[in-house]
């Protein structure tokens, strides 16, 4: 797959001036819509996670007429619900030296200098309002005996800025947003469509004007038009088949928008989380993450000797390799996610992995239990130990846990400007579905922050500036009909193949290929191989997939087949993006670009830019570069030794 280079992106619409004044300036500059006019403006929000749920609720509160869509049976189920650890905010309630500037600084640095300074600063500013909002909604955050909010230090941060609700922070924040959304549904400002899947974007006269959706119960194809469309449809980690995402997470909404003209930015930036439960067999359907906090007390090791088949308890101390403590004496077991993940892969590649297939490393609590006592360990990690035992059947108090990295989050997504607007006017993208704030690597406890910042505070302001020029009138019937016909013919095509392989079998094969060639470590050779193999597999899919049932009923096989078809196209762009970016940065490690110690080596001279890809229906993708400038945080190479 080749590409051509297009014009660079020069303007992201961020106001100029001192960084701490930019968001204020934008808010003041944004046109307002008077309350009577808001009632005449329709907005479609797709997805009901933290970003989509909070955006739909807030737009409803402001008085817009909102339609909200989700594929689940209720908006309360979106995968934000599974986030365990917490949410960052620059409250500095501890007085430990935190500030908006420090959260901004940590996020830019943690993102390996591939995020925009203006956006990240705004995120840090808004972070404090999120906590206020959530508390007022009744989100039961952890508290101290004095009645004030508890915080913890998370993911190697040197300040204690992570607010949490036991190991279920995502659930509690999502339920807060869900309840706000249900309140608006009751008030009649939001109309909710559950079990509806977006299958295309309607673009008419150069503006996003609606969506084509399928009612997943009846199979009916419906058209919904509006004055603006907001996509909050999450990440695309399921391109790897096995990931920590929910089974239904998919790329279809953003991919179809990409095909309609929205640029796709940095698709190769994938976050691989180091502490997940390893694969147990071929039937594995998903991977389960265990909170990163386990690394605070667990020690990571593998046998010193290759192919050592002894039980962990039989391996004496001097025949164990605590490799993170050995290679990174300063940070030890607490090195950032990307480093811990790659180190695990390396020792397994050396043949020193443990468990089925040798794809696992030990996370051992023996010393912590010895030092703190079993009760103290149980108090801290009891629910995680229980979860581990439920899945593996092994008791981690007696036998060390086995862990292995798994795909967890995608930093890439649809390109948006400072207003969170894509390259299609009227199409806004929020939460994990956009690319904007995490650069090449997301810090722990920052995903919840970004989703809610976008949904409660940023989008509701910036979308007003766009809608102030509306309503945009009747939607060109031809554009709507064309989108509907495209959706119908694709469904017909999937059902007509009637081949010999299930959609899942193709998805598994694609996932393996992506994990192997575009996973934790990428090389020119592996990526070229993937780019050769993906089109072959896609061709086989369209020739040999078997979709049972009909289009006019609840048909989970058909749903799956449509999503897998889009994953093929996305996978190809991911590999191309990874191939072109010959540097290593954050979640993207190119083996050719490392220093003498095997650490990631950035190439700021060539790659300090966002890669925004334009779809071209017949020809080659067009690469637009958005240069990244760092006026406040000096670019440095990360070091954790």
């Amino acid at each position, binding site marked *: 797959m080749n590409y051509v280079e297009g014009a660079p992106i020069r303007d992201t619409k961020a106001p100029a001036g001192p960084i701490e004044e930019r968001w204020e300036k934008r808010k003041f500059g944004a046109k307002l819509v008077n309350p009577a006019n808001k009632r005449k403006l329709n907005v479609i929000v797709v997805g009901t996670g933290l970003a989509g749920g909070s955006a739909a609720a807030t737009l409803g509160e402001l008085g817009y007429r909102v339609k909200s869509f989700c594929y689940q049976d209720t908006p309360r*189920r979106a995968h934000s619900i599974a986030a365990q650890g917490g949410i960052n905010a620059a409250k500095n309630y501890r007085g430990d030296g935190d500030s908006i500037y420090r959260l901004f600084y940590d996020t830019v640095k943690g993102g390996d200098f591939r995020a925009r300074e203006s956006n990240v600063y705004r995120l840090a500013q808004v972070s404090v309002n999120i906590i206020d909002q959530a508390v007022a909604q009744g989100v*039961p955050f952890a508290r101290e005996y004095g009645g004030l*909010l508890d915080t913890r230090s998370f993911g190697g941060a040197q300040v204690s800025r992570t607010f949490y609700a036991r190991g279920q922070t995502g659930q509690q924040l999502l339920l807060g947003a869900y309840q706000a959304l249900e309140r608006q549904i009751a008030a009649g400002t939001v109309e909710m469509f559950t079990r509806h899947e977006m299958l295309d974007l309607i673009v008419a006269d150069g503006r996003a004007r609606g969506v084509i959706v399928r009612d997943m119960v009846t199979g009916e194809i419906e058209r919904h038009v509006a004055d603006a469309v907001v996509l909050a449809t999450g990440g695309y980690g399921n391109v790897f088949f096995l990931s920590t995402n*929910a*089974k239904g997470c998919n790329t279809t909404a953003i991919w179809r928008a990409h095909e309609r003209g929205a640029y796709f930015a940095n698709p190769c930036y994938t976050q691989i989380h180091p502490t997940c439960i390893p694969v147990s067999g071929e039937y594995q359907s998903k991977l389960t993450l265990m909170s990163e906090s386990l690394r605070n007390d667990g020690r990571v090791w593998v046998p010193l000797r290759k192919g050592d088949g002894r039980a962990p308890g039989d391996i004496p101390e001097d025949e164990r390799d605590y490799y993170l403590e050995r290679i990174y004496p300063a940070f030890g077991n607490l090195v950032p996610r990307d480093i811990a993940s790659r180190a695990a892969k390396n020792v397994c590649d050396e043949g020193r992995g443990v468990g089925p297939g040798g794809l696992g490393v030990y996370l051992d609590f023996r010393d912590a239990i010895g030092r703190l006592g079993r009760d103290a360990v149980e108090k801290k990690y009891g629910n995680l130990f229980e979860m581990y035992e439920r899945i593996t*059947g092994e008791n981690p108090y007696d036998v060390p846990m086995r862990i292995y990295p798994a795909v967890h989050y995608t930093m890439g997504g649809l390109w948006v400007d400072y207003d969170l607007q894509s390259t299609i006017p009227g199409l806004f993208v929020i939460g994990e579905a956009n690319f904007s704030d995490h650069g090449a690597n997301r810090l722990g406890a920052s995903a919840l922050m970004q989703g809610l910042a976008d949904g409660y505070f940023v989008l509701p302001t910036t979308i007003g500036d766009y809608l102030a020029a509306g309503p945009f009138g009747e939607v060109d019937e031809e554009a709507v009909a064309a989108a509907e016909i495209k959706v119908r013919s694709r469904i017909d095509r999937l059902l007509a193949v009637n081949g010999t392989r299930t959609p899942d079998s193709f998805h598994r094969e694609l996932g393996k290929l992506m994990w192997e060639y575009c996973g934790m470590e990428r090389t020119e050779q592996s990526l070229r191989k993937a780019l050769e193999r993906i089109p072959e597999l896609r061709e086989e899919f369209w020739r040999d997939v078997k979709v049972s049932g009909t289009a006019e009923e*609840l048909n989970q096989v058909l749903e799956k087949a449509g999503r897998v078809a889009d994953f093929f196209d996305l996978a190809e762009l991911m590999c191309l993006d990874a191939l072109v970016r010959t540097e290593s940065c954050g979640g993207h490690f190119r083996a050719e670009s490392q220093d003498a110690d095997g650490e990631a080596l950035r190439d700021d001279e060539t790659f300090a830019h966002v890669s925004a890809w334009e779809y071209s229906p017949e020809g080659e993708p067009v690469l637009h570069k958005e240069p990244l400038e760092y006026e406040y945080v000096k670019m440095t190479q990360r070091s954790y030794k």
Partner: protein
Amino acid sequence: MNLTLKVWRQSGPSDAGRMVTYRVEDVSPDMSFLEMLDVLNERLILEGDDPVAFDHDCREGICGMCGMVINGVAHGEQRATTTCQLHMRHFEDGATITIEPWRAAPFPVVKDLVVDRSAFDRVIQAGGFVSVPAGSAPDAHSIPVRKEDADDAFDAATCIGCGACVAACPNGSASLFTAAKITHLSLLPQGQPERLSRAKAMVDQMDAEGFGGCTNTGECTAVCPKGIPLDTIAQMNSDYLKANAK
């Protein structure tokens, strides 16, 4: 392991439905219950049969989307476990397993094991929230909350809305679900202004949806994957009575 499954098949709301028997072979004890059904479905698709429709999403026990009555027990016999977190090592080789959808009038069957739980959303719509528009909140530390209250509120707030409580209740009552939300918000200062009106509106909505009354059998809390305590129902009744006495 080799197993015999007796699965409820129902093509849609108008179909009467029936149990259908399937054999599944070479099941690994490390498989999850849903992975075992995935294996069955992969086979059914290739044989040209309609695979068994079931709801699922996160597969890590938190989204609340999955739920089946397994051998007569909502989410199966293992306590405090969602269907997706149930693993095959808890079944005997050669066993026969019956699998049915949630059965309650307010949860009509959509297809096979998939039911419509939108009644739960309408109960929340009636008042399961604090009315606080985005941007209007005071500083989070302006109102301290006793740690004990925050912890108890959290325990009630962990409800995942799966509906097992309704499926297990001989009366088809949604009291545990409704009481969990009422209790969560009743325990916090932020929930006080709307406390009584909330309880009244939610309980009335629950009744309007056709859920049965609570007779304290406790089946709900026994199957609840999050162990929501039964005394939340006492809190609900107390708030409801106060609201009606006003």
